C-alpha cells in the first residue's frame, strides 16, 4: 500500500470507497458461484468415476472377446469382415450452461435404426466369437458416449472452479484489504490536515489578540 502513491483527497476517498463496495459485492457473488460450481462438480465427478470404471471394464472384456475371435479365424477373413461397416454414428453437440460454464451435451444417432447393423459381414466365414465381441462392444457404446459428455464437463468445470477460486482469493486477500488500507490512510491524512489547520487558526487568533491587547506585557 505504502509503495504506491495515493493523493489523500476527498475525491480519492470517494473513489476508493466505491471500489471497496464493488469488490465486496463481486467477492460475495464469486464465492457463491464457486460454492455452487463445487457442489455440482462433486456430484458430476462421482458419476464420472463410476462411468469410467464401468467403461474400462467393458472395453477390457470386449478386447478379450476380440482376441479370442481373432484367434479363431485367420487375419484376412477378419479384416474382410470388418472392412466395410454398415452402421454409422452421427453426433449432435448441444450446449448446456451450468453457472456460466458451457458444457457439451452429446446426442448420438445411428444411420440405421436396426440394432443388427453392427454386424457388417455375412455369418458364413466368421466365427461366432466375433459376433459376441462386436455385441459386447456395442453394449458399452452408450456408456462411452455418456462418459465423454460427463468427463468433458468435469474438465471444463474444474478449470472454471480454479479460475473462480483464484479470483475470490485475489479479492479477499489483496483487493479488499488494499482498499481498506487506502481508506484508512486517506481519512487519517484528512483528519490530520483538519487538525493542523485548526491549530493554525487558533495560533493566528492568539497572535492577533496579542497584537491588539498586549496581554503578556500586562502580566509582567
Amino acid at each position, binding site marked *: 500500500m505504502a509503495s504506491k502513491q495515493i493523493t489523500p483527497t476527498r475525491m480519492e476517498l470517494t473513489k476508493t470507497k466505491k471500489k471497496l463496495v464493488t469488490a465486496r459485492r463481486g467477492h460475495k457473488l464469486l464465492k457463491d458461484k464457486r460454492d455452487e460450481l463445487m457442489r455440482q462438480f462433486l456430484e458430476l465427478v462421482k458419476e464420472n468415476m463410476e462411468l469410467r470404471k464401468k467403461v474400462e471394464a467393458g472395453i477390457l472384456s470386449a478386447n478379450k472377446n476380440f482376441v479370442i475371435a481373432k484367434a479363431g479365424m485367420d487375419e484376412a477373413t477378419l479384416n474382410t469382415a470388418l472392412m466395410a461397416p454398415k*452402421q454409422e454414428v452421427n453426433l449432435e453437440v448441444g450446449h448446456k450452461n451450468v453457472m456460466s460454464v458451457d458444457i457439451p451435451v452429446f446426442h448420438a444417432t445411428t444411420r440405421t435404426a436396426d440394432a443388427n447393423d453392427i454386424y457388417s459381414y455375412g455369418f458364413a466365414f466368421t466365427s461366432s466369437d466375433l459376433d459376441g465381441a462386436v455385441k459386447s462392444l456395442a453394449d458399452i457404446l452408450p456408456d462411452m*458416449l455418456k462418459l465423454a459428455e460427463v468427463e468433458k464437463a468435469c474438465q471444463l468445470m474444474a478449470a472454471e472452479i480454479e479460475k473462480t477460486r483464484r479470483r475470490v482469493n485475489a479479492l479477499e486477500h489483496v483487493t479488499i484489504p488494499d482498499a481498506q488500507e487506502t481508506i484508512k490512510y486517506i481519512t487519517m491524512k484528512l483528519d490530520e490536515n483538519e487538525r493542523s489547520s485548526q491549530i493554525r487558526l487558533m495560533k493566528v487568533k492568539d497572535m492577533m489578540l496579542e497584537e491588539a491587547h498586549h496581554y503578556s506585557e500586562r502580566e509582567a
Partner: protein
Amino acid sequence: MYKVAVMGDYDSIYGFATLGLDTFPVNDPSEAARILHQLADGKYGIIYITEALAAQLKHEISKYQEQISPAIIQIPGVSGNTGAGVTGVKKSVETAVGSDILFGE
C-alpha cells in the same frame, strides 16, 4: 453434424469400426499428433484415444482440455489398463478442490 473418432494401435481399436465410429490406427506419435489436430479441427465431437497413445501426446491433448469441443477421452487399449483415465479424473478433482478429497488413497 459431428462424428466420433477412435485413435490408437490397430489391435485396440479395429472393433469400433463395426459400431460406426471412425477408426484411425496409428502408432507413430508425431503422425498421431498430426491426425489429432486434423480431427479436432474437423467434424469430430468426441475423440477416443488409447491410454498408451495418449501418454505420448500429453502436450497436444492438454491444448484441447479447456475447449468445449472436441472431448478427448482416454480408453484402455488391448495391452491393458494403465490407469491413466482414472488418474485424469483424479486430476480434475485436484484442479478444482486443491487436493484429491474423493478418490485419494
